[in-house]
C-alpha cells in the first residue's frame, strides 16, 4: 500500500470515528433523563409567576381542567412530572373541620386529599409518611410512594404546598429501575421551581 493510500485510509478512519462518536453521543443525550441543557418555562398566574426549569429534552404541556391549572413534563424513559394547582382544594382544605380532621392542618388535609387522588389508576400503591420539606419556597409536605402503573413498577414523590390562591401539588415519577439516577434530576427541578 502506497503512502498516499495509507494517508487516505487514516483520514477516512479518523473522520468516521469522529462522526460515529458524535452520532452516538447525540443519541445517548436524547435518551438521558438528566438532559444536557436546561430550558425555562414561565407564565403569569394568580398575580404571580410560575417558573419551571427543566432538562431540555423533556416535553412540556400545559392544560386547564376547569379552575385547575396543570403542567405536565415528560422525559425519556417514562419519566413524568406533573405540577397542578387547585383553588377548589385550597378552599376545601382551609374550611373548618370537625372531629378527627380538626387536629390536622390545612396543608395536611390537602396532602391527604391529593394522596387519595393519586391512588387512582395505580395498583399496589404504598406511600410513606409525609415529612416537612422546605422546597417550593414555602412550607410543604413531601411523601414518597411506589406502585404498579400499567404493569410496570414505578417510584415517585409528591410535594404539596399552599400558595396564595391554590393548593399546589408537584408529583415526580419514573420507572423503579431508574429511580437512583432520575431522583436527583427530579429533585433539582423541584428545588428550582417557583410557584405563585
Amino acid at each position, binding site marked *: 500500500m502506497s503512502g*498516499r493510500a*495509507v*494517508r*487516505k485510509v*487514516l*483520514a477516512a*478512519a*479518523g*473522520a468516521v*470515528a*469522529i462522526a460515529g*462518536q*458524535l452520532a452516538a*453521543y*447525540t443519541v*445517548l*443525550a436524547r435518551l438521558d433523563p438528566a438532559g*444536557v*441543557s436546561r430550558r425555562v418555562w414561565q407564565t403569569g398566574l394568580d398575580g404571580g409567576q410560575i417558573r419551571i426549569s427543566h432538562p*431540555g*429534552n423533556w416535553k412540556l404541556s400545559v392544560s386547564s381542567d376547569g379552575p385547575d391549572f396543570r403542567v405536565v413534563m415528560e422525559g425519556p424513559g417514562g419519566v413524568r412530572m406533573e405540577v397542578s394547582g387547585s383553588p377548589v382544594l385550597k378552599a376545601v382544605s382551609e374550611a373548618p373541620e370537625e372531629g378527627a380532621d380538626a387536629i390536622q392542618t390545612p396543608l395536611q388535609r390537602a396532602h391527604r386529599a391529593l394522596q387519595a387522588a393519586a391512588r387512582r389508576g395505580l395498583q399496589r400503591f404504598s406511600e410513606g409518611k409525609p415529612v416537612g420539606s422546605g422546597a417550593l419556597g414555602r412550607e410543604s409536605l413531601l411523601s414518597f410512594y411506589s406502585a404498579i402503573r400499567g404493569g410496570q413498577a414505578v417510584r415517585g414523590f409528591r410535594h404539596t404546598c399552599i400558595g396564595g390562591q391554590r393548593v399546589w401539588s408537584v408529583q415526580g415519577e419514573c420507572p423503579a429501575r431508574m429511580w437512583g439516577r432520575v431522583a436527583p434530576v427530579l429533585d433539582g427541578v423541584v428545588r428550582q421551581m417557583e410557584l405563585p
Partner: protein
Amino acid sequence: MSVVCQWCGMESEDEHQCSWCRRMIVPPPAPPPPSSQSAADDEDQAAPAFIAPLPERLEWFASVVLPLMAVGVAWTRWTAVPLPVAAACASLAACFFLSVYQLVQSVDERLAPVGLSAPLALMFGPVSAAVVFVVIFLVTGRRDALTPFGLLAVHSGTVLLMAYARAPEAGEALRRAGLFTGADAMSLAYLAAIAGWALANFWRPLNE
C-alpha cells in the same frame, strides 16, 4: 551531485533522502526560463520554494489530525478533564500540525497578524476575530490575513468538536464553546493554538 536539505540545511549526497537527518528531500521547482527581466527580479525568484503541492499537504494534515481529534473527542467525553483544558490541548495539536504541514505560514513570516488575532479572539471570541481577518483579506487582498484566519478557523472547529463531545446538543455545545463570546476560560484556549503554531516552527523546513 549534492543537494541542500530543506529540513536541516546540510548538504546531502543523496538527492532523495538527506544523508544527515534522513528526511525526504523535496526537489526544488525547475528554474524559470531565462528572460529579459531585471536583476532584482531574478534575485526574488532565485530562492527555491521547498513545499509539497497543497493536496498532498492537506492529505498529510487530515491523516494525522482526524485520528487525533477522534481520540480527543473520546478523551473529552469519558474523562472529567475540564473542557477548556481539553479544548486547549486539541487546539494546540491541530494548529501544530496545520503549521508543520505548511498549510499556514510560519512564525518568522506572520508573527504580527497572528499576535494581533490573540487579543481579538480573547475579547470577542474566535469567530468574530476570524471574520475580521476575512474582511481584511477581502478588502485589502493582504495574504498575511490568511494565516491568523486559518488558525482561528481550525481552532474554532476543534473547540466546537470538544464542546459537542461534552454536551451533545447543538445550542448547548455552541454556548459552551464560547465561539462568539470572549473573556472566558474557553477563549484562553486560543493561546494554546498559537503556542502549537509557534512550536511547529522547529519542525518546518529551514528553507521553505
